[in-house]
């Protein structure tokens, strides 16, 4: 029983969330924030595979997210809705219920293949070259899509709302929260399995001593490419979910700033800590949303106390001053991120009882 208690808890809380959203017990805003949280968890945990566990420095995660978002959006719009560009639906909208995960996975696959193209040249040398190749790749992907007028170019691409609505028409339950929760759990579970297997631990060995890894029979090149593809593929899944949550994508929503957000979540959580990444994604999402409300309050307070001139308003622009500031301070006090490379269960040993760890026992 104890072995399954964690899974049970997860399923119950997910079901609770979905039910709450279905019966309008929580409003649309909170549901969206929770979905965003899920997407951020996918992004930060998947980037952690490369930047944390493997110790490389990839800074174009949003580019892969972009590929996933566009591929799955175009697929789902093309398959299930009638559209000005692609004409009538290729498949019956009824199938959308079953094929939606396949569409999202196809986005992930496309992102993984893009990751392969990026990874092959970048791992020829070690060090910071991956950083610039991924930055360049991020720019190139965005710029490439902006030049593709068929799918809207810089204006963006829409129509995914109708796919989501089509699913809702067949069976009236909140589909998107369900898919986001499923996707998040799936991604965390995949990464967990990967890094706790002897196979995946190869990348941790690469991080700690690449020479020793190569000499001790780890095929370092293959492992690096595999880990990078896994990471970018999961980012693609996050992108696909993101596109369907908002029903609209725009190349500029996947720019370097988005990649920076992913980086921030990884290093805030701690390199090579899965629970750290989850925690930091949750905190980061909450922080961004909380600032939306805190900043006007601060403004009112400052005006009330006459701290700032009447003509000046503290606006939402300050959000992106406050967040980096908080991060810099966090790093000054916890220079390994919130969790270092430890997991939650290292801090609270009693947690170990709730899920099986392959430990030396």
């Amino acid at each position, binding site marked *: 029983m104890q072995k399954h208690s964690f899974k049970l808890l997860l399923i119950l809380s997910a079901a609770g969330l979905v039910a709450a959203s279905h019966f309008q017990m929580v409003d649309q805003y909170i549901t969206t924030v929770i979905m965003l949280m899920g997407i951020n968890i996918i992004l930060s945990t998947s980037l952690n595979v490369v930047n944390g566990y493997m110790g490389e420095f990839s800074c174009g995660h949003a580019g892969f997210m972009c590929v996933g978002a566009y591929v799955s959006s175009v697929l789902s719009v093309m398959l299930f809705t009638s559209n000005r560009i692609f004409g009538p639906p290729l498949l019956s909208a009824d199938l959308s219920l079953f094929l939606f995960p396949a569409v999202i996975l196809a986005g992930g696959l496309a992102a993984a293949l893009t990751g392969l193209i990026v990874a092959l040249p970048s791992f020829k040398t070690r060090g910071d070259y991956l950083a610039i190749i991924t930055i360049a790749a991020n720019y190139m992907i965005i710029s490439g899509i902006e030049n593709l007028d068929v799918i809207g170019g810089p204006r963006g691409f829409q129509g995914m709302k109708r796919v989501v609505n089509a699913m809702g028409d067949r069976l009236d339950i909140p589909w998107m929260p369900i898919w986001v929760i499923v996707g998040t759990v799936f991604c965390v579970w995949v990464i967990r399995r990967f890094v706790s297997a*002897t*196979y995946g631990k190869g990348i941790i060995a690469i991080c*700690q001593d690449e020479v020793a890894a190569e*000499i001790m029979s780890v095929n370092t090149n293959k492992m690096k490419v595999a880990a990078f593809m896994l990471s970018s593929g999961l980012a693609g899944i996050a992108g696909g979910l993101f596109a369907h949550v908002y029903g609209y994508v725009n190349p500029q929503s996947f720019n370097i700033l988005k990649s920076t957000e992913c980086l921030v979540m990884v290093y805030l959580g701690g390199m090579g800590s899965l629970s750290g990444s989850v925690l930091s994604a949750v905190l980061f999402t909450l922080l961004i949303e909380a600032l939306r409300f805190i900043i006007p309050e601060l403004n009112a307070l400052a005006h009330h106390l006459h701290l700032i001139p009447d003509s000046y308003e503290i606006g939402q622009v300050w959000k992106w001053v406050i967040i980096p500031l908080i991060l810099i301070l966090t790093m000054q006090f916890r220079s390994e991120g919130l969790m270092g490379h430890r997991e939650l269960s290292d801090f609270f040993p009693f947690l170990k009882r709730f899920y099986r760890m392959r430990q*030396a026992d």
Partner: protein
Amino acid sequence: MALLEIKGLTQRFGGLEAVSDFNVRIEEGSLTGLIGPNGAGKTTIFNLTSGFYQPTEGEIHFGGRDTAGLKPHQITAMGVARTFQNIRLWQDMTVLDNIRVSQHYRMGYSIWDCLLQTRRFLRQEREIDRLAFELLEAMGLKDLAGERPRNLPYGLQRRVEIARAMSVRPKLLLLDEPAAGLNSSDVEGLITLVRWLQREFKITIWMIEHQMKVVMSLCSSMKVIDFGKTIAEGTPEQIQSDPKVISAYLGDENI
């Protein structure tokens, strides 16, 4: 036939000839030494043997097979394991994981098996665990399985590194200055360990070592190199009385 045969091995780094025309035949089951002053090119020979560098000239045959163009991990999978002069364990992984990761050479499952946790994956992982524990038990390291090498004393780290090298079931074990940085009681332990390894696992050992005590009591034959060139070879007794070796180590008084 010799297990390892090196012919005319030469390695140049820019203008520097680190190894020049090095030849060796290492017979199966032997325990051979490689000595020479600092910077003589000993570690370079090991790096070439384990595939970390590609030789400028010359051939390396292992078990009758030419290793040219093979990656280090492929050569390791053929049965060449090594340790490093300054210990290169994965310091933040447990001792057990250090052993486990070194089993990549016989990873019988793909990434999909790993993600889907197929029966093949579970069977392999169990097998890896079993072998790892067996080895740790045999090496007397079982109690340290959950420790991180970072927290272990230097002598034990050496032992763990040798255990890690042994975990790839090598035919040939290359030991790069295994006694460096050990105190005298650790050195005694090391000598016993190496003897035991050779007897127990029937492996061939080739070692670089400075400490005469270790080389003299372990090796049946040895080679001395200086500035990349072989200057002497023979049994420990012959080497000890060779004037060229003495001048390489102590300097030539006649100059």
